[in-house]
């Protein structure tokens, strides 16, 4: 049977508050244990669920709180050891979890691969074989067209040029090997190889950096709506989303958990996060909600800080400004249709440069101004990244990381004084990995390169 361990997001992407990342294969428990230090999952009972934090073993940083289901072979869908990690449904968090697992040695599952394994391992009935094959086909076709849509022309051009640099280097090494008497080209030296390898590596690192920004744009800018209870946060979400997504009542403390919605404001994709009003509270459920609000605040790229114009500015409001000061903020003074008891000068003093917009959500006033302010923040700010090359597909990121690693190994080998024909193994590997990103992996092209680059013969 196939031994390698595979992983994939097994819930529809972008839908639902919770996502599940599944791992299947011999290494499942080992991988999970490396990123979930809370307890030894290999020792717990099968079919149990465990709460704890995911930790990035490279940095020892906490990634997020998750629930982990442990299912031991053979009583599982694939008849292999399975781990399922339940995490927040947002793209950012799911991707982060997936990437951690990939980095720890799992392979991204091919379309339909869990089902394929389930069948090959005898879990799925013989009569279903046709259905399994159809599923693999249709999932593959879908994935392919998606991959094509996602592939930015600039990205594929850049990757092509990196591959070209690599293959020229490899062909150069190869010509020295296969035609040792050929004196037209200088002998490739370790130093030349280091120079070329390092140049490509730097490009790959740059791509990986922009990958994060690419992700932000694809999924939307994380935008947290915060404020004291009852100021109109949920109302704001509903208006921007043009849909009654969040419950609105006149009871303070209505929203008890984080509610998310994707919206597009003047071309800026936002992931709007409505939060529980922040206040000291005895109610245990509300308190958890408040905790989450603070977390959402931390993770957000943009904060819509809502104040109630009908009430005086308080210490708590000022504390919110203080808590959000690391982020882009837009202050919203709501309920302008009611009597204004807020002291604008006081707000201005605390808010500093932060834009202040007045709205009445019941009368739908000031929405335009708010939208303009949101758009301006981004189009004038750093996130205006029109000329960045976006890499955002998890698979792409994994392949880029592997390419970087392969190049590192090549450069390390040079340092260790390994002969070039061995160093070349990892350079070729880098070239192949980059090829997988753009779906080009024909081995023959090395030989084509060899004969087009050099004049060889008898």
């Amino acid at each position: 049977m196939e031994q390698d361990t595979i992983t994939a997001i097994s819930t529809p992407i972008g839908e639902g508050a919770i996502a599940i990342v599944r791992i299947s294969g011999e290494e499942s428990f080992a991988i999970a244990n490396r990123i979930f230090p809370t307890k030894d999952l290999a020792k717990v009972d099968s079919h149990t669920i465990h709460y704890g934090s995911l930790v990035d073993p490279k940095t020892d940083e906490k990634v997020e709180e998750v629930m982990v289901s442990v299912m031991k072979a053979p009583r599982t869908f694939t008849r292999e050891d399975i781990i399922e990690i339940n995490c927040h449904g947002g793209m950012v968090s799911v991707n982060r979890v997936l990437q951690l697992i990939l980095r720890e040695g799992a392979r991204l599952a091919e379309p339909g691969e869990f089902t394929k394994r389930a069948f090959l391992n005898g879990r799925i009935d013989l009569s279903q074989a046709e259905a399994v094959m159809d599923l693999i086909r249709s999932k593959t076709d879908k994935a392919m067209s998606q991959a094509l849509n996602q592939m930015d022309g600039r990205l594929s051009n850049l990757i092509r040029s990196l591959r070209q640099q690599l293959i020229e280097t490899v062909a150069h090494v190869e010509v020295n090997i296969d035609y040792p008497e050929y004196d037209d080209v200088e002998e490739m030296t370790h130093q030349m190889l280091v120079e070329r390898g390092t140049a490509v590596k730097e490009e790959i690192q740059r791509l990986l950096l922009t990958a994060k920004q690419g992700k932000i744009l694809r999924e939307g800018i994380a935008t947290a709506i915060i404020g004291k209870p009852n100021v109109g946060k949920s109302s704001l979400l509903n208006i921007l989303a043009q849909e009654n997504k969040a419950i609105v009542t006149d009871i303070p403390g209505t929203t008890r958990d984080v509610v998310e919605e994707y919206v597009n404001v003047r071309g800026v994709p936002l992931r709007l996060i409505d939060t529980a009003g922040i206040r000291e509270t005895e109610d245990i459920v509300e308190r958890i909600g408040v905790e989450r609000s603070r977390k959402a605040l931390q993770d957000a790229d943009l904060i819509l800080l809502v104040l109630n114009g009908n009430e005086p500015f308080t210490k708590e409001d000022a504390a919110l400004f203080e808590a959000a000061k690391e982020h882009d903020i837009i202050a919203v003074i709501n309920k302008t249709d009611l009597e204004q008891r807020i002291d604008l000068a006081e707000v201005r003093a605390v808010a500093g440069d932060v834009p202040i917009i007045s709205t009445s959500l019941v009368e739908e006033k000031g929405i335009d101004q708010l939208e303009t302010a949101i758009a301006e923040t981004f189009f004038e700010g750093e996130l205006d990244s029109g000329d960045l090359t976006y890499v955002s597909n998890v698979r792409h990121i994994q392949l880029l990381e592997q390419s970087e690693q392969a190049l590192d190994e090549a450069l390390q080998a040079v340092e260790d004084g390994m002969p070039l024909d061995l160093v070349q193994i990892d350079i070729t590997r880098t070239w192949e990995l980059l090829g997988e990103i753009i779906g080009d992996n024909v081995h023959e092209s090395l030989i084509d390169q060899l004969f087009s680059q050099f004049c060889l013969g008898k």
Partner: protein
Amino acid sequence: MYDAGHYDVIVIGAGHAGVEAGLASARRGAKTLMLTLNLDLIAFMPCNPSLGGPAKGVVVREIDALGGAMAKVIDKTHIQMRLLNTSKGPAVRALRAQADKVLYQQEMKHVIENQENLTLRQGMVDRLLIEDNQVKGVVTETKACYYADQVIVTTGTFMRGKVLIGDIEYESGPNNQRPTIKLSKQLEELGIELVRFKTGTPPRVNSHTIDYSQTEIQPGDEEPRAFSYETTEFITDQIPCWLTYTGEVTHEIIMDNLSKSAMYSGAERGTGPRYCPSVEDKIVRFSDKPRHQIFLEPEGRNTEEVYVQGLSTSLPEDVQKKLLETIPGLEKAEMMRAGYAIEYDAVVPTQLWPTLELKTINGLFTAGQINGTSGYEEAAAQGVMAGINAAGKALNKESLILDRSQAYIGVLIDDLVTKGTDEPYRLLTSRAEYRLLLRHDNADLRLIDVAYEYGLISDERYERFTHKKQQIQDEIKRLEKIIIKPDEDIQKVIEEQNGTLLKEAVRATDLLRRPEMKYEHLKPFVSRETELPPEVEEQVEIHVKYEGYIKKSNQQVEKMRKMDNKYIPEHIDYDQISGIASEAREKLKQVRPLSVGQASRISGVNPSDISILLVYIEQGVRSKVSNE
């Protein structure tokens, strides 16, 4: 027609493929007949008088490990030998020998004449006898009927061969031998798909008319070398080759006469290999190069003919003469034979099983240049394998398929039957994924067990080999246990090699792993009672030094093997598998891969097609179980 005899296996042709096929078949115990056009031209080298080089040299050793003759014969008949790529890693080192062309043929003929079970006859085969898609024998031009259920065709570039020089063309095999017309036509009539390939050769000049003072000498290695580990007598008096260059004037003449070149005159021609372009090709495609290398290679000890490597051409004879005059050292050279191109039929190799038997005709094998390859070593390699497998079939023994991690021979045949080729195929080290494992120094370690199991080598040779293997393992184990303390003596040695001094005691193997350290440096510190043979020391050093890379390669091989061991049922009907993409389906139907691994190497077959194939195969397995 008369009944000329019955055999287990008949080999048509005694070129490099034919001789190894006949020898291997006979060694395996099959009563074998070898038929060829001219007994004076056995294992003839129509082009370069040289064997080996990167990848190819490794193949020569692989052939030797499988009991073949090429290595031992060249060891006896070369005029110089060199180890190439000595400054590079062990994976790419290789031997190359310049051959005495005539002695090589004589020696090979002698080997054949003395091989048990093998009969050598002169004759041109006109026709194969075939009944119900089963080979029954062959008929010669002189009406002799030889019968056998296995026939190996190794007719090289003779199939409807056509020689081209300028605007002159005539039907011919290489070197003005008679071409094979009827057999080629019959193959076509049998529904076998053929392609037209071409290749070429440079002029030869008289050594007395060369001014060597204008050239650079290229001597052989001083250290005696040999391809075969069985060789004990080494040739010491070697003959040098010489290096000179083309120049601007050479290139001008070529450009002025391009339209007269048989290759450039516009006529539709067969496909030539990119790696052996004619000099016309080189000048046209790399017009910015001011000069190209020309090697002058003597064709033997008892001849004055010199092969002008680098000047392969199909320009008219008079232009060839003019070209020679422009090359330093060759200004007065007398051209003894003109260069020419030759065009010939080849069998599309995806029609073959990996055993080299045709899928459509039982018992019919093809090997060598006829399968779309080029090169003596490539031909010989296929010959050995076809011989082993044809004999195996005749004797009801197992067939032998080498995989890509076992031998370059495995890479060669897998490439041919799985991917096919659209130009004459030459082995290159870069065609091998696991070239660190496919070294020339370990060809015996990779293949001797197989060779012994298949009855291709003697008991004595196997014993010698087992002993060597044991010595290597023991020595590595021993070194792992020896601790070297940082005393003055070792520090001195390390210093001499420009290494960093030891700070604490280390294992001998750790020290050997350092790039600057050699086994030889360690010897005084790891002393043993008896010296080890140099080839054992070499193995120990390589194993220890490159352990990390070797391990990595082995892991990849494991993966490949897993897929290669998943067999595809013989009568699988790809039309029944609905999910497979149509391009992949066509390819699979054509190639009919034996294993899922082989299927995955077909271009156009994607991972999802492989997944679907796996599910389909599993379905078959399970329904069979449930029916029982």
